[in-house]
Structure formats: structure tokens, C-alpha cells
């Protein structure tokens, strides 16, 4: 269970990027965060694993608050939270399997990690995860030789090998063609069910959010304006969410 309570963040004084954001997510739920550009979606996602230090609130994962964790505890939190990026963020020069194994670093001693010493089980698991994402024949290829959709699946395998409770995806399909995008969304959905994950994806495509998400969170100007089952997302709500009308904003 992930509980976010009254999360606040401002990058500059008196210009809040997030105001009083609260929501709960149960395991096995695929959540889409939608909202216009600059609404604060990335800020929420990066606060959840504290890549961004927020200002106030609580982020409770299975009863423990990640915001009050010290350095060592934060490391333990982070290894339970996978992250998937719009630009994949792989080490392009290394092979696919090396990139997948990077997901184990959080569990290793500094020295073993520095020298990239992985156990036999870890290597076998990496292979089986590659099979799961449909890349078993690419294990020894360099990542720079893969297509965007394939790179994203490597990124997903890298997060799965962390044995995560949560996977955060910041616009995972924004750089992909429609077919690869469907493919990645289907994979994320399937993995969410199979591993009972909390999967949170920032999306710009409303139709994808409706099609794949169980729960939708709508953000507008740093405020949470919608948090319901995906089926309840109406045209009306979409209009308020993406409305550009200035007179309304002044209220």
C-alpha cells in the first residue's frame, strides 16, 4: 500500500509546484497520472523515490515513511521502487544484460557493485526477465543497437530485477511509435497483475490511460483534481483538467 499525504513542493519561493497532494494506491493497481504540461506530474513521481526533495507531507510505503529515511534507509526504499524513463536512461555502450543487472546494485556491497560482480542466480534471473519482456535473444547486444521499444523493455527488466513493490514510469511511451507504445503498455499492465505491483505512469495519451489504467489521478497546476477508478473519467473532468480558460484560473 502506498499512501501519499499532503505532499507539498515549491522550486521557487511562493510558486508552489505541488499543493496538498494526497492519494492511496493498493498493490496490483496500474495508475495513470494525467494533466497538462507543467502540472507537476514529474515532480510527484520523483518525490516518490526522493530524487526530488519535497517540502512537506508524508509518503508511506507499507507503513514506513520514505521522507524521514536516512541515507542507508533511503537506499533500501529505493531498491523497492523501480523507475522507467522516457529516454530509457540505459548505459548505451554496455550490453543488454549488463544494463538489466544494474537493477541489482542496490542490494550489493559497494565493492561488488563497483566491479560488477553478480551472482549466478542474479544472472539467471536477468535472463529469465529478458525472456519475459521478449528480448532473450538480445542479451549480449549493445543497447545502442536496439530500437526505442526494445530499449524501454530493457529499462522495464532493469526495474523488475529490483524485486520492486512500486514501478514509477515517467512518460514511458512518449518517444515510441504507436505499435511499440501499445506493446510497452500491455507489458506494464501484465506485470502489474503478475507481480501484484503498484505501477504509476505519467501519461499524455488519455486514450492509453483509459485503456490500461485501473485508477487515474488528474493533476492541474499542482493540485489534485481527480482520483478515481479509470471508468469514472468523464469528458467534463477532462475539460476542467485541460481547460485553458483564464477567467476560471483567476477565481
Amino acid at each position, binding site marked *: 500500500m502506498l499512501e501519499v499525504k499532503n505532499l507539498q513542493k515549491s522550486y521557487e519561493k511562493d510558486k508552489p509546484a505541488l499543493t496538498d497532494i494526497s492519494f492511496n494506491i493498493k498493490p496490483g493497481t496500474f495508475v495513470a497520472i494525467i494533466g497538462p504540461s507543467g502540472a507537476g506530474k514529474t515532480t510527484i513521481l520523483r518525490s516518490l523515490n526522493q*530524487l526530488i526533495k519535497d517540502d512537506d507531507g508524508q509518503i508511506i510505503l507499507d507503513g514506513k515513511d520514505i521522507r524521514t529515511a536516512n541515507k542507508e534507509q533511503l537506499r533500501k526504499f529505493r531498491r523497492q521502487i523501480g*523507475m522507467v524513463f522516457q529516454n530509457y536512461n540505459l548505459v548505451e555502450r*554496455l550490453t543488454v544484460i549488463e544494463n538489466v543487472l*544494474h*537493477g541489482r*546494485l542496490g542490494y550489493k556491497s*559497494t565493492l561488488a557493485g563497483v566491479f560488477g560482480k553478480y551472482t549466478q542466480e542474479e544472472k539467471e534471473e536477468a535472463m529469465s526477465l529478458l525472456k519475459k519482456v521478449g528480448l532473450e535473444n538480445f542479451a549480449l547486444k549493445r543497447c545502442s543497437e536496439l530500437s526505442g521499444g526494445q530499449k524501454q523493455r530493457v529499462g522495464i527488466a*532493469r526495474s523488475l530485477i*529490483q524485486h520492486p513493490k512500486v514501478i514509477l514510469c515517467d512518460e514511458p511511451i512518449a518517444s515510441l511509435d504507436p505499435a511499440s507504445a501499445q506493446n510497452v503498455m500491455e507489458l506494464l499492465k501484465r506485470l502489474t497483475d503478475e507481480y501484484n505491483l503498484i505501477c504509476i505512469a505519467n501519461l499524455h495519451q488519455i486514450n492509453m490511460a483509459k485503456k490500461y489504467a485501473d485508477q487515474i489521478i488528474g493533476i492541474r497546476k499542482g493540485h489534485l483534481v481527480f482520483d478515481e477508478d479509470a471508468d469514472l473519467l468523464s469528458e467534463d473532468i477532462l475539460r476542467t483538467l485541460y481547460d485553458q480558460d483564464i477567467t476560471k484560473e483567476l477565481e
Partner: protein
Amino acid sequence: MQSPTNFLKHKGWHQTAIIAIIGGIYVFASWILSFDNLAGFTAIPRAFAWLGVNFKPTSSSMEFLPKIWQKLIQTVLLAISSTVVASAISIFIALLGSKVTGINGTVQTIVRGIASFFRNIPLVAWSMILLFSFKQSDFTGFLALLLLSIGYLIRAFMEIIEDEASETMLALKATGASYFQVIFQAVLPQILPSILSWILYTIENNVRDATLVGILTGTGIGFIFDVYFKSFRYDAAGMTVLAIIIVVIALETISNQIRRVIL
């Protein structure tokens, strides 16, 4: 607020003004230095003709070849060793000073300061300064090249780290990897090709510079060039220059090959 057309008009104006100012400075400078433009340009072919006649290696300059060859190898080794040591030091310092891997703002400012200090003292000045402490020796030349290279490489490496490693760095940080794990597993592998490319370039550059440094420190190929030149053995001096050119071109060709393989 400026309208776009207004902005473009202004921009056109600025460019004209800048070109006029540069032209003005040139005219003014020629007048101060009483530099005769036309005579300056006509002198160039004559200078080459003089070089061609006097510096042409003859059959008798062949006897100098073994000596030249030996000094040339010494010089190339000096360039390579100074570059390698400079690179090792620079990577370390660049990691401490870059925006993405650095410790904090103060350290970043200090590192930038140090790099710019080493870079902005000319090579000749470094050699002169070091000559006082270390006398005429290979070590003086080594240090002069080392310090200047460090100045350039720190700056280049920091930019490479900031451009190429910030995204993967973020991804590994998010998995819970520790600082050193991120450096060794993401940052270093990611930047390796660009770093190697810069190291090769610095080696080529340092071979050329080592010649100049050699004249000052009395070592290597620069030293024998100086000796031949001052003893009016222009043909041998010409032979030395020719040998340097061949080696520099050869090095460039080799490093281009290496680049093609690693990039």
C-alpha cells in the same frame, strides 16, 4: 516585450555594427604597428621560397637521421606519458567538480578555477617557471605539458560528464545504487569513448607542443632542432621539421583509426 520582426531588425543591426567594429580595430591596429598590408601578404611566398631553398634536406643530412629518430621517439614518449598522467588526474578531479557527480557548489567553483588557471598560463610561461625549479631536463618538459593538459582535460571531461552521464546516473541512483557504484557502473562506461577521443587528441597536440618545450628545456627533438638551426645546418633542421611532420601525421592517422573503432 519585443515583437519578433523588431527583434530580427535589431539583430541585423547588431551584426552590422559588430563587423564594422572588428574592421575598425584591424585598420587601427595596422596603423599603430605600421603594418603594411600588401607587403605583408607578398612576403609570404618569398618566405616559403627561402625555406624551400635553405631547409631542403640534402643527401648529407641523412647522417643526422638516427639522432633525429632517437630524439623524436623520446619526444613522443614524453607527450604520451604526460597525457596519460594528466588524464588520470583530470578524470578524478572532473568527477569531483562536475555538476552531476560533484560534491557541492564550492568544490565545483574551485575545480573550475584551478582548471582555468592551468589552462590560461601559456606553455612557454609554464616552461620558464618550471625551468627555475627543475633546470633543463626532461622532467621540466613533462611537468609543463602535464599542467597545461590538466587544465584542458579537466574542463573537457567535466563537460562530457555533464552532457553524457546525467541521465544514466539518475537511473542508477533511483535503483538504490551507491555513489561509487553509479560512478563505476554508469558514468565511466558511458563517457569512455569521448574521454579516449580527447586523450588521443591531447597526445597529438602534446607532440607538437613538446617540440617547443624541448627548445626551452634543452631536451628532445626541440633541442636538436635548436642546435642545428643555430649552427647553420639548415638542411638538418629541415630534416628535423620533416620528421616531426611525418610523425604528427602518422599519429593523427593512427588515432583516427582508433576513434573509428571505439566510437
